[in-house]
């Protein structure tokens, strides 16, 4: 049994809601000990976001919260009380990383700003993940994944050219760009600390990773003087590339043709004279008739079972994929089953509930959620007896006095 990649790394986590909690979850699943600082007085609002186990609302019942907080421990502390702040300072003295995704200035107001903490812990890595970053005229702006998608142009560029933008239908920047960039930056800082002993602060504006993932619009603007627009499912280099109906209610298949050979294979699988038109045999020819080709494919695909059509096309080396929904993925997808993607972890209020495993597998051993999301304050006593030297009677008194709540 080898140790996990981040075994021995300790994080005091002030993150809440989306991207921040997902960042520290990635680190917790990789082996870091993440202590989530919470309070019954000021809840992480994701604890009150659906879905709930059994459809019953409760602070320990949100599946959304659970998936974003696997492998973490929770402690409740009233940061409005100076004794609460002192206890947090004690935890931070021995940790490697402090993380938050508040607006700039909030950590300072709570008594846990970087300038204060660096004197308590000289090797500390401190990351703030606000919408717009620590400095600048718009630093105070409040942001969510969807408003970040709008501000960065990601939302405006996603959709059909002749209709309103549609984006991903989710708060996309919260789920991949910001958690992955945040986790990567923290681990870069961990390497520097391991080599030099030096800590540092990391300022990650949540707009900026998303922008780093879409360089072409600004480069087109600068280098070619062109403003790119929405192109729906089409993309340069492919003809056709689209989403077509298959048998069943609201069932679809995505097909991307990147070569003339793939086009011939698509025609052979779908059949019909129209698909064999000579002028459509080359990409240049197909590019002149994209709407007509899309209609021809759709007319034929609609009679096929989506999975059977996908298999037939894949047998010919044609990129094709059924548009799968959550039920398909959770209950049926044989590949996700093969990779053990879905994990069911026991939780005292939620029962066995569903977590994502990571998209990476390590040959040395299993990686992923180690235990279910914590109940609110579940580990208060455990953490304080282990890390702060408080006796059980002190903990009881502080709870009674509204400090550990």
């Amino acid at each position, binding site marked *: 049994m080898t140790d996990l990649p981040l075994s021995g790394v300790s994080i005091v986590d002030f993150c809440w809601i989306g991207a921040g909690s997902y960042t520290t979850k990635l680190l917790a699943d990789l082996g870091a000990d993440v202590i989530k600082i919470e309070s019954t007085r000021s809840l992480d609002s*994701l604890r009150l976001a659906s879905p709930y186990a059994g459809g019953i609302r409760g602070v320990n019942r949100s*599946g959304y919260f659970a998936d974003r907080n696997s492998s973490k421990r929770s402690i409740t502390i009233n940061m409005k009380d100076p004794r609460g702040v002192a206890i947090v300072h004690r935890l931070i003295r021995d940790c490697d990383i402090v993380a938050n995704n508040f607006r700039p200035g909030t950590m300072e107001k709570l008594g846990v700003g970087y300038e204060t903490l660096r004197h308590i812990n000289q090797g500390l890595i401190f990351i703030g993940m606000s919408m717009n970053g620590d400095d600048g005229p718009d630093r105070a702006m409040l942001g969510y994944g969807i408003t970040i998608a709008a501000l960065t142009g990601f939302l405006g560029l996603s959709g059909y050219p002749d209709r309103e933008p549609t984006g991903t239908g989710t708060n996309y920047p919260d789920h991949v760009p910001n958690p992955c960039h945040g986790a990567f930056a923290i681990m*870069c800082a961990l390497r520097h600390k391991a080599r030099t002993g030096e800590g540092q602060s990391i300022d990650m504006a949540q707009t900026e990773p998303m*922008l780093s993932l879409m360089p072409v619009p600004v480069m087109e603007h*600068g280098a070619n003087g062109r403003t790119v627009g929405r192109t729906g499912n089409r993309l340069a280099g492919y003809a056709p590339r689209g*989403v077509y109906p298959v048998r069943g209610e609201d069932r679809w298949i995505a097909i991307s043709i990147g070569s003339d050979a793939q086009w011939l294979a698509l025609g052979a699988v779908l059949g019909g004279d129209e698909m064999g038109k000579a002028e459509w045999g080359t990409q240049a020819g197909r590019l002149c008739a994209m709407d007509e080709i899309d209609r021809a494919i759709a007319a034929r695909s609609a009679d096929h079972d989506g999975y059977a059509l996908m298999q037939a096309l894949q047998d010919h080396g044609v990129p094709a994929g059924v548009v799968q929904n959550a039920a398909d993925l959770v209950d049926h997808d044989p590949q996700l089953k093969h990779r053990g993607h879905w994990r069911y972890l026991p939780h005292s209020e939620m029962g066995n509930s569903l977590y994502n495993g990571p998209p990476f597998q*390590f040959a040395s051993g299993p990686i992923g959620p180690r235990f279910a999301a914590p109940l609110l304050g579940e580990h208060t006593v455990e953490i304080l007896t282990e890390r702060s030297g408080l006796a059980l009677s002190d903990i009881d008194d502080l709870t009674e006095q509204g400090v550990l709540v």
Partner: protein
Amino acid sequence: MSDPTALEGVQVLELSGLYGAYCGKLFADMGAKVTLFEPLSGSPMRAKPPFVGDRPGQDNSLAFAYFAANKHSLCADLATPQGQALLLQAAAGADLLILSDHPDAQAVDLAALSAAYPRLVCVRITPYGSDGPYGGYVGDDLTLMAMGGLLTMAGFPDCAPVVAYGEQGLLAADQFAAVAAIAALLRAERSGQGEMIDISIQEAIVMALENAAQTYQLEGKVRKRTAGARRAGSGIFTCKDGQIYLLAGGIGETAMWGNFALWMAAEQCPGAQIFAAADWDDTAPGADEAFQSVFLPFAMGQTKDQLYQGGKTWGVPIAPMSTPGDLLGNRQLLHRDYFVQLPAGSPLGGTRVPGAPYKLSATPWALRTPAPALAPATQDGKDATP
């Protein structure tokens, strides 16, 4: 004297194609030496449109200029023994090897490399993972976004789902690959133990499903695409000079609706008293129409930026639907010097590109060198240094 870098001394060998490059870029920009191992004809990304001046050419692809900046190039034919020897030699000095859709990926024997160099961390990125029922399937961004479950939530219910801009599914895999690789690298430096990491692009996309999987498991509901059917106070709205996105409803329990009502009252927006009413229900029938009848006339008199600044003052999440021109002139991004110029030395030198995605105080992100020219085929393992 230049700043210290976080990944100083880390050697990365990148065998990528149309994906995998962002993983290498994350390492290169933080100071690792990343060598792009190219086939004789060059990385497929060199041929990816659009091109500067619309002229295809080895150094003219916008994507290549961005994703390969800060990297070195090494060129070899992996179908030959010399090419294989060169790969073995390059891997000997490497800490991390990234393998994705390199045209000769089949000729890379990761198991042999990993056996030869036990400290090496290898990351393999494939559409569905390297084995299993779909292990042999091919995929591009669109088909993988379909199979990964994100596409089903994107678009209008009355027509086919529509994929997000910018091949984000492929980039999602690159990002998770970087996270896994650096975690394994930290352990390798601590213990001498290398790793073999297998990434599925489909599965990286599954990570982006928000609460959809749990909503199905816990409440039996399947999330679908819902564009156009909105909750009053949330969505895209037209204003004087474009569009904005307003999120006055919200996630969980928030005070944002109250803030919005106060803002509209302060603006003396006619009819805004309905927003402050105790019985206002943003999901009630007719609420969206009522909302629009009050908000739209106000919004039409305001610019994107005025509305954004209003949201900042009143604590309401709202954002301009930015164009690329807006982004290059965005005062916050300018203040942070976010966009940087590609270094001189390539046809795209001087072009502004996205810069640091994070600011590390002691070991900052830095763009140092342009994307490398295609190195001449070499026998001795020397690479072209830009």
